[in-house]
C-alpha cells in the first residue's frame, strides 16, 4: 500500500511522463522535417525510414539557387505583422465594449462573428477573387493584409474579450473615478493588466497569418506570394521531392518558430491567464 506522499510522487512522475510523451509526439513531425531536409531524395524515401544517414546541404543549396527566399520571407513578415497590427487595433476596442458594456445582443454578436469561421474558404473564393480583381488587389501585400485581418479578427476579438472579462469592472471604475479619460483607462489600466493575454492573441494571429496557405496561394502570383506559396512550389506529383520540400519547409518555419520561442514566456502566461484565481 502506497503512502499519500508516494502516491503524489507517482502521480507527478506519471504526469511528467505523459507531458513528455505528448510534447515529443507534437515535436516529432518538426524533428523529422528537419532531419529529412539533410537527406538525399533516395534516403528521404527509403523504407524503413532512416534515422542515421550521411547528411547533406544540397537541398538548401538547391532551394537557394532556385528561389528568392528573402523575397517570399519579406512578404510573409509584412502580411503577418501588418494584419496582426490592424487586427489588434480593431479587436481591442471591440472586445472592450463587449466585455465592459455588455448588451443583450453581445453574446449573439460574438457567436455570429465566430460563425464566419465555419464557412469553408473555397465557398467564397470566386466572389473574393472578383472583388480583388476589380479593386486591383490581386497579387498585392495590401490585399493579403486585408484578407488575413478579416480572417483572424473573430478569434482575436474572442480572445481579447475572454481576457478582458477576467478583469474586475471595479478597477476600471476606480480609474474613471480618479479622472481617467477613455484612452487613459485603456492604455494605463486595461492593457497593462491584460498584457499576457493580448501577447498570446498577437502571437496566435501572427502564427495563423504566417501559416495561412489557401488565400495566399489563390490571391497571389509572383509579387506578393509569401513563404506558404514557396513551399507549394516544391511539391510534385511526378518525381521525388520530400528532401527539397523539407528543406524549404524548415526555412519557412524557422522565423516564426524562433519568434515563438523568444516570446514563449508571454504565450504561456497569456494562455493560462485567469486559469487560477
Amino acid at each position, binding site marked *: 500500500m502506497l503512502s499519500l506522499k508516494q502516491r503524489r510522487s507517482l502521480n507527478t512522475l506519471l504526469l511528467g511522463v505523459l507531458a513528455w510523451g505528448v510534447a515529443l509526439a507534437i515535436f516529432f513531425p518538426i524533428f523529422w522535417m528537419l532531419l529529412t531536409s539533410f537527406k538525399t*531524395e*533516395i534516403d528521404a*524515401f*527509403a*523504407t524503413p525510414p532512416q534515422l542515421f544517414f550521411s547528411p547533406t546541404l544540397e537541398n538548401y543549396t538547391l532551394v537557394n539557387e*532556385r528561389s528568392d527566399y528573402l523575397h517570399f520571407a519579406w512578404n510573409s513578415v509584412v502580411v503577418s505583422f501588418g494584419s496582426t497590427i490592424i487586427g489588434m487595433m480593431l479587436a481591442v476596442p471591440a472586445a472592450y465594449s463587449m466585455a465592459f458594456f455588455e448588451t443583450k445582443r453581445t453574446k449573439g454578436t460574438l457567436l455570429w462573428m465566430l460563425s464566419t469561421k465555419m464557412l469553408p474558404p473555397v465557398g467564397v*473564393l*470566386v466572389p473574393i*477573387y*472578383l472583388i480583388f*480583381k476589380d479593386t486591383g488587389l*490581386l*497579387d498585392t501585400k495590401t490585399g493579403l493584409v486585408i484578407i488575413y485581418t478579416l480572417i483572424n479578427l473573430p478569434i482575436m476579438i474572442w480572445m481579447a474579450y475572454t481576457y478582458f472579462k477576467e478583469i474586475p469592472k471595479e478597477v476600471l471604475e476606480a480609474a474613471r473615478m480618479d479622472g481617467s479619460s477613455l484612452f487613459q483607462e485603456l492604455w494605463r489600466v486595461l492593457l497593462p493588466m491584460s498584457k499576457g493575454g493580448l501577447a498570446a492573441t498577437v502571437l496566435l494571429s501572427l502564427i495563423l497569418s504566417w501559416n495561412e496557405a489557401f488565400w495566399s*496561394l*489563390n490571391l497571389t*502570383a*509572383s*509579387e506578393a*506570394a509569401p513563404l506558404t*506559396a514557396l513551399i*507549394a*512550389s*516544391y*511539391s*510534385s*506529383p*511526378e*518525381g*521525388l*521531392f520530400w528532401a527539397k520540400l523539407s528543406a524549404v519547409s524548415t526555412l519557412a518555419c524557422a522565423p516564426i518558430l524562433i519568434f515563438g520561442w523568444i516570446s514563449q514566456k508571454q504565450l504561456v502566461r497569456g494562455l493560462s491567464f485567469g486559469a487560477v484565481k
Partner: protein
Amino acid sequence: MNKKRYLAAVMAVGMTAAASSAIAATKVTIGTVNNGDMVRMQGLSDEFEKLYPHIDLNWVVLEENVLRQRLTTDIATDGGQFDVMTIGMYEAPIWGEKGWLTPMEDLPSDYDLDDIFPSVLGGLSFDGTLYALPFYAESSMTFYRKDLFEANGLSMPRQPSWDQMKTFAEKLHKPEEDQYGICLRGKAGWGENMALITTMGNAFGARWFDVNWKPEFTGPEWQNAISFYVDLLSNYGPPGASSNGFNENLALFNSGKCAMWVDATVAGSFLTDESQSRVAEHVGFALAPEQVTSKGSGWLWAWALAVPVSSDSKDAAKTFITWATSRAYSQLVEETYGIASVPPGTRTSTYDNEEYLAAAPFASRTLEAIGNADPNNSTLNPSPYVGVQFAAIPEFQSIATQVGKLISGALAGSMSVDHALKAAQSITLREMTRARYYSN
C-alpha cells in the same frame, strides 16, 4: 534661383521616369508545374532574357493540383494574373472551346510545326484550331526488372496482355523478400488511379460513355477490368496499394521492391538514373498491356504552354512559348544539361537523333507508345469523347475523382467491386443529367 533649380530637378526626374517607362521590359508571368523539365526551363530563363531583353519573365511554380485550381480560377474570372499558363491535354480543348485561350496561329516560319507529333497537336486543339504549344508529352508503358525475369526464365513481350502480366506477377511475387509482383496506382484521383484504370478499361473493351453519353460501369467490360485490377493488386501488389500514386510506386521500384510497374513513360528517366535508382541497370521497357484490344491501352498526356485571352502581354507571352517549345530550345537543353534531359515526346526530330536514343534507353518505346495513342479513337466501341485516359468534358474531373475514390475503396476492401461500379454508374448518370447531356 532656387525655384529654377527645383523646376529643373522636377523636369529631370520626370524625363527619367518617362524614359525608363518607355524602355521598361514587358513583364510576362508564367504559371507552371513543379517537375524536372519545367524547373530546367526556369533555369534557362536568363538565356531567353538575353535574346529578348525587352521581356522580363516572372515564375509562379506550383504543385499540379494547386496550379490547376489557381489557373482555372484566374481564367474563368478573366483575372489576368498569368500571361503564360501551363495546361494539359484535358484543359486545352475545353478552354479553347470556351474562347479563353489565344489561338496559336501565325507561328514563326522556323518553328516547324510539322515536326510535332500529330496526336499531340490533335489533343491540344479544338475544332481544328491549336490552342497551346506542347512542351513535353508522355504515354504509359510497362517497366520491369530484366534481372528477375531472367532469373525466373521469363520473357517480356513487346506488348504483354494483362493476363500475361498476372502470370508474371504470380511468379515474381515474393513478399517475404520484400519483392512484389506488380505495382500499380491505387491512390484516388482523376489524374492518379483513374489514368491507369481508364487505359486498363480501354484494353478490356470498356468506355466511359456510349455514343449517347450514357455511362457503362455496370456492363461486363468494366466489371472484368475492375475485378481483374483489384484481384491482381490485392494478391500480387505491395501492402497498402490503395494509397500508392506515381511517387510511391517510383520509390518502391527504385528501391528494388517491384518486379513490374505500369505507369507514365516519364518514369523511365528516373528509373535509369543511377543517382536515384538502385536497379537502374536492370530496368526493361515494354508497351502498356493490352487485353481484348490494344486501342487506348497506353495513355497520352502533354504539358503545354498557352496564352490566356486575359493577358495584357500576349505578344511577349507568345514569343516566350514559341522559344520554349522550339527545336532551338531542345538544343539549348542538350548543351546545358545533356541530351537525356531534352523534353520528350513532342518532336520527331528528337527521336531521329541517334545520340538521344542511345542516352535514353526508354526512348524508342516512348516513341512507339505516343505513336499508338490516339485521343480521337481510344476505345474498342465508338465513344463521343476525345481523350485516352480521360474524357475532355468539363464534368469529367469531378466525376472521375468520385469514381476514383470508389475504386480505391474496392481495392482497400471497404466495399465490393460490384458495389463500387453500381455507385460509379449512379454518380456518373446523376452528374451527366445535371449537366444536361440528357433529360433522364
